[in-house]
């Protein structure tokens, strides 16, 4: 990860990739291997080109999947050479744009971090939606980026911890009498955004009444679970390790990581109900040298088949409604974008968080240390 623990920046998902390399190594790769992946055999001429394209990713198994799902196929079919780098982050985009040394043409971020940075000035190019496939839903489109990956932050538990009882939602998570054992939740270090939504649902707020978040109420609810939380995690590998080592009986996790855990035979499962549906997005940094190629790639990677290919490799969902016909039904049962699961999830409101993140994090740290 770093030569010495004092200096290098330790961002949430750079670490996820690098730690993942260590943690996931002994595990069976969670890809869905039955049958051949669907192939995109032709693309509109307008998406073809020449030269190169530099993409920043979160690394790890996610990047491995992306290489197979759309980096290599795009290079072959478009004639544009794709180079990719782990370690994407909004602060780095800010530094690159401010110093005029833009090393990435596309960066994988979230709508939240893109819009948060955009609030400070012009840091991203506008997306040319004339190139984008019709199958990409309106909810995934925004001016300075386009969402390209659907994932979920959900409740996960040890199936051997509660004598067969199955926790359903955050009220059960908060109920340490009925479901004994320690807990872990996402903290603020490493760029995490606290899970106020979960705290509200634990206090009985219905899923459709969460936003705008009643911050006082959320922290009052947090008070009740604070003693049982042994770790406020900051990278995706940590909750997986805590579950594996029986340090906690329940935790919040990123759903994609659970597949590796289950493939390794750990008795743990996801409880999808009341999970948060989140998305990653492509952003094109302002002044990117290959911005035109970047636009072509963004358009290609959100087409139905490239999106479906991702879901074949890693249990994350598609933003293209037409992808489902290229994903086997058995596979859809573990995708946050599948209708049966999507209906149980709460759509994460990035707009609320862009406005309130700073205040919430300040308050969270004060609350945690107080």
């Amino acid at each position, binding site marked *: 990860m770093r030569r*010495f623990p*004092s200096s290098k920046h330790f*961002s949430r998902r750079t670490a996820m990739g690098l730690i993942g390399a260590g943690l996931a190594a002994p595990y069976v790769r969670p890809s869905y291997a039955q049958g051949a992946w669907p192939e995109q055999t032709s693309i509109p001429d307008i998406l073809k080109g020449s030269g190169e394209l530099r993409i920043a990713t979160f690394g790890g198994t996610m990047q491995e999947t992306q290489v197979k799902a759309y980096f290599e196929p795009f290079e072959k079919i478009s004639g544009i050479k794709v180079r990719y780098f782990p370690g994407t982050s909004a602060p780095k985009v800010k530094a690159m744009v401010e110093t005029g040394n833009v090393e990435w043409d596309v960066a994988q971020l979230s709508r939240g971090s893109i819009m948060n940075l955009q609030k400070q000035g012009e840091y991203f190019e506008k997306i040319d939606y004339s190139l984008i496939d019709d199958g990409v839903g309106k909810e995934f489109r925004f001016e300075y980026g386009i969402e390209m990956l659907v994932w979920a932050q959900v409740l996960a538990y040890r199936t051997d911890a509660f004598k067969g009882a199955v926790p359903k939602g955050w009220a059960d998570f908060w109920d340490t009498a009925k479901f004994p054992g320690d807990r872990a939740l996402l903290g603020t270090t490493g760029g995490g955004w606290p899970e106020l939504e979960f705290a509200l649902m634990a206090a009985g707020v219905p899923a459709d009444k969460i936003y705008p978040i009643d911050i006082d109420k959320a922290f009052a609810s947090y008070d009740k679970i604070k003693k049982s939380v042994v770790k406020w995690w900051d990278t995706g590998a940590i909750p997986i390790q805590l579950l594996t080592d029986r*340090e906690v009986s329940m935790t919040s996790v990123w759903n994609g990581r659970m597949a590796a855990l289950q493939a390794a035979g750990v008795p743990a499962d996801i409880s999808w109900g009341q999970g948060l549906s989140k998305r990653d997005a492509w952003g094109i940094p302002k002044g990117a040298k290959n911005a035109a190629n970047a636009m072509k790639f963004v358009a290609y990677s959100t087409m139905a088949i490239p999106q479906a290919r991702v879901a074949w490799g890693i249990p994350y969902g598609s933003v293209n409604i037409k992808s489902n016909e290229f994903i086997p039904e058995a596979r859809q049962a573990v995708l946050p974008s599948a209708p049966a699961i999507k209906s149980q999830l709460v759509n994460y409101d990035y707009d609320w968080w862009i406005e309130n993140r*700073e205040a919430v994090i300040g308050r969270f740290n004060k609350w945690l*240390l107080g």
Partner: protein
Amino acid sequence: MSEAVEIPSGTLTVTRPIGVQFSWRKAIPWLLTGPLLLFMLAFYAVPVVAMLLRSVNDPTWTLAHFHALASDTVFFKVFSNTLYTAFTVTIGALLFGYPLALALVRTPRWAPVILIMILLPFWTSVLVRSYAWMVLMGRHGLINEALLALGTIERPFRILNTPLATQIAMIHILLPYMVLPIANALRQIDPSLPRASSGLGATPWGTFRQITLPLSMSGVAAGMLLVFVLALGFYITPAMLGGPREITLSMLIDLQVDQLNWAYAATLSAVLLATTLAIIGVFYRLPGVSNAFRMGAR
């Protein structure tokens, strides 16, 4: 222009150039260190100064960020926690490190083994070591399982995810920085001194207390300085092994960078840097400390 130096015996006269002429002899140290100095200036000093300037010059010249810091209770809690951890780790490393350094110097047969024991972990990635600690210290880890099997405890106790776990791991990681300067100081003690001491009738303990220990204090001070300063900047180890409320200053800086509050991040960095420099300054005034950083044998 030259000057004749009269040697008192009057038999030898040496001439030596004076004035502002170029002197190769004087230039050599600069030529040797010049490339590194330029490198440090370009890739270290300039970026650090540019970063620190943000704390007083963002968006305009202002001390507002330092004012904000003064009333930031989170900062004070995190800062005192960071100092406290660094302090306990320094004391822990000293207690374990001094006997080890003594063994390293006094038992030449075992020295290679001891050195390997210290340095092997030193060459292992901090991340790998943190995972190893998790295996050891977990609720169902080796330590708990062993104690349960022996009947020492009835139920597993929590070590992992507590400040104690952070301290144990940090002591382990930083031990070489304590042992090596102390061993160096011990090695520089003139062996005739302890011999004279015991020859004059001192007990081994008396010799240690009155000769060895005082003469090795420069190494102790140097080791403590290194360990303390390095401990101030820890991030991964407390993040992975520490308790739920463990936020270090480095984590807080990282958080501010991520939140795009770069001016505030720079302010926090300035405080960390100033603290570090102050500590180094104080330690350097202790007798013998600067000697301890000198290389080489007696």
